[in-house]
């Protein structure tokens, strides 16, 4: 199959196969692959490009899993750098931002063996007490699986209790690479691919929406990436509950794979593009700026991505692994990134409902207009 063949398939709305996906990952002309992905992206969303006001909190980095790629987790409570937030400290993160509150709180943690399940219920309930309409996107499928095995419940029971306490949706982390040849080497002591997918399946049956991810750029092959995408596509055919797919670039600092180089920007763009082309049933592809830097994420908006994630604030997992991205972006910065890419910025809620549509700006003119406005603002402040 050639790129022209893929193009014809896409025009005919035919599905791409495993071999097609591998070919796209291997194809030397990344820009041409990006063009195909951009066509699909524009067919689905036009110029609309999404982001939200969110806030990341990692309440504990104590973890029983020993994933090779992780620079965040400390294996035991009391280990140097290990930290578990008292509930008041976690809630304080939101209270301190109530002058410009986030619409969504995104919580991901280590798998802490010593906390009671009520800690997580109280955590959620406390955030809802402070801001009843905040969306709680919390706990990866890996965490839900851990809760089920550790506290002796089914996935349904765990999710039902957490929902009763305030959980609204699940984030996509923990997928890593599904293929057992890779997963067995980099993440052997946490939820398997089947368990990860089953948690999402159960959540979707309960009416919840979830995201999914893929950690790329370490020891996996392009075949493993294609396998990963096809497993997600199959789940989505079955449930329709995935909202967004987020390719996550491996960062090597301070973890068990520190001798590997980080994936490059070209690989990031290629992975975004192929994801857009293969995951024909997943509505949104995110260019997660924390993982790929805001600059490359902006370019990814022309390679198939339609979402930049959000303002973030307090992300520590990627920063522990050496990410040089800033800790947070303001709404103004996100809007500017989108406008200067010639796209239309849309602030969304977690379910992609429009909160606010911003001004459109043409590529060159728009950039100048935004800079001009910024310069005027500075002048006003100065005077």
């Amino acid at each position, binding site marked *: 199959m*050639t*790129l*022209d063949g893929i*193009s014809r398939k896409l025009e005919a709305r035919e599905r791409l196969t495993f071999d097609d996906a591998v070919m796209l990952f*291997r194809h*030397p*002309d*990344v*820009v*041409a692959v*990006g*063009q*195909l992905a*951009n066509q699909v992206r524009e067919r689905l969303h036009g110029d609309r490009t999404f982001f939200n006001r969110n806030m990341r909190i990692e309440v504990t980095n104590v973890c029983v899993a020993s994933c090779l790629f992780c620079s965040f987790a400390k294996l035991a409570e009391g280990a140097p750098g290990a930290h578990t937030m008292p509930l008041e400290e976690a809630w304080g993160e939101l209270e301190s931002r109530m002058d410009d509150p986030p619409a969504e709180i995104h919580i991901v943690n280590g798998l802490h063996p010593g906390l009671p399940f009520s800690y997580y219920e109280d955590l959620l309930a406390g955030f809802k007490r402070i801001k009843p309409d905040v969306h709680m996107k919390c706990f990866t499928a890996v965490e839900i699986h851990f809760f089920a095995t550790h506290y002796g419940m089914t996935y349904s029971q765990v999710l039902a209790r957490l929902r009763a306490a305030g959980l609204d949706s699940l984030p996509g982390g923990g997928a890593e690479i599904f293929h057992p040849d890779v997963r067995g080497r980099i993440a052997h002591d946490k939820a398997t691919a089947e368990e990860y997918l089953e948690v999402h399946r159960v959540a979707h049956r309960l009416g919840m929406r979830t995201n999914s991810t893929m950690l790329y750029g370490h020891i996996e092959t392009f075949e493993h990436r294609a396998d990963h995408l096809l497993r997600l596509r199959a789940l989505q055919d079955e449930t329709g509950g995935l909202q967004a797919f987020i390719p996550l670039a491996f960062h090597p*600092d301070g973890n068990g794979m520190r001798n590997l*180089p980080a*994936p*490059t*920007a*070209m*690989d*990031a*763009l290629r992975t975004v593009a192929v994801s857009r082309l293969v995951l024909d049933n997943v509505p949104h592809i995110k260019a997660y700026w924390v993982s*790929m*830097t805001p*600059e*490359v994420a*902006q*370019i990814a908006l*022309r390679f198939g991505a339609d979402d930049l994630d959000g303002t973030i604030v307090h992300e520590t997992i990627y920063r522990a692994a*050496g990410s*040089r991205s800033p800790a947070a972006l303001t709404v103004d910065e996100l809007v500017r*990134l989108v406008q*200067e*890419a*010639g796209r239309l910025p849309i602030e969304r809620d977690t379910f992609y409902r429009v909160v606010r549509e911003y001004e459109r700006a043409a*590529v*060159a003119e728009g*950039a100048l207009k935004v*800079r001009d406005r910024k310069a005027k603002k500075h002048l006003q402040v100065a005077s």
Partner: protein
Amino acid sequence: MGKLVSALVDRAIESAGLGDLLTARRRDARLPDDLAARLASADLLALGALADCVRQEEVGDEVRVYTGEAPVEDASALIVISAGEGEPTGLDLLRRVAVARVLGPRGVSVRVDWAGCGLELAQITLGFGANELSGRIANKRGLPLAPGELAGVGKKSRRELADLVKRKELAGYVRRAFIDALGVAEITDERALAQESA
């Protein structure tokens, strides 16, 4: 269009209204008067595809990477793009590189200095017509290394730079990377680099 361009890329260049440029360039014919305006507003990926095609036909797949003082053997055959200062976005940088390739003299080297834009963006310019990269090796925080620190950089960073070129996979195979930093021997191909790393 030429055999190097797939029908898909050919269509993209045509539909962006840039089809006549490649033909004119191949024939060394006069370029259209409205060219600059067309390039400023053309679809970026189509422009990139055009620039990449010109790059492949005129200078081939070799990428040179300079980590020290980059040579200027013939100023008329070199366009240096120092990204960052005054560049509002990475997208503008890509367009600037592509335009330099399309409008520049035949066979010119388009060199991107990564000091302002970072290695990530610099790598992407290799798909938009650039064929040389230059800049200082930096530490993890992006700060340039002092001359005294360079001795400690050694093979690993040079290896990473070669990987950067290799991973672009523009032609599906490794191209030669000339790395002239640190006062060590010039590395002319991947095999030599591998031997040195070993």
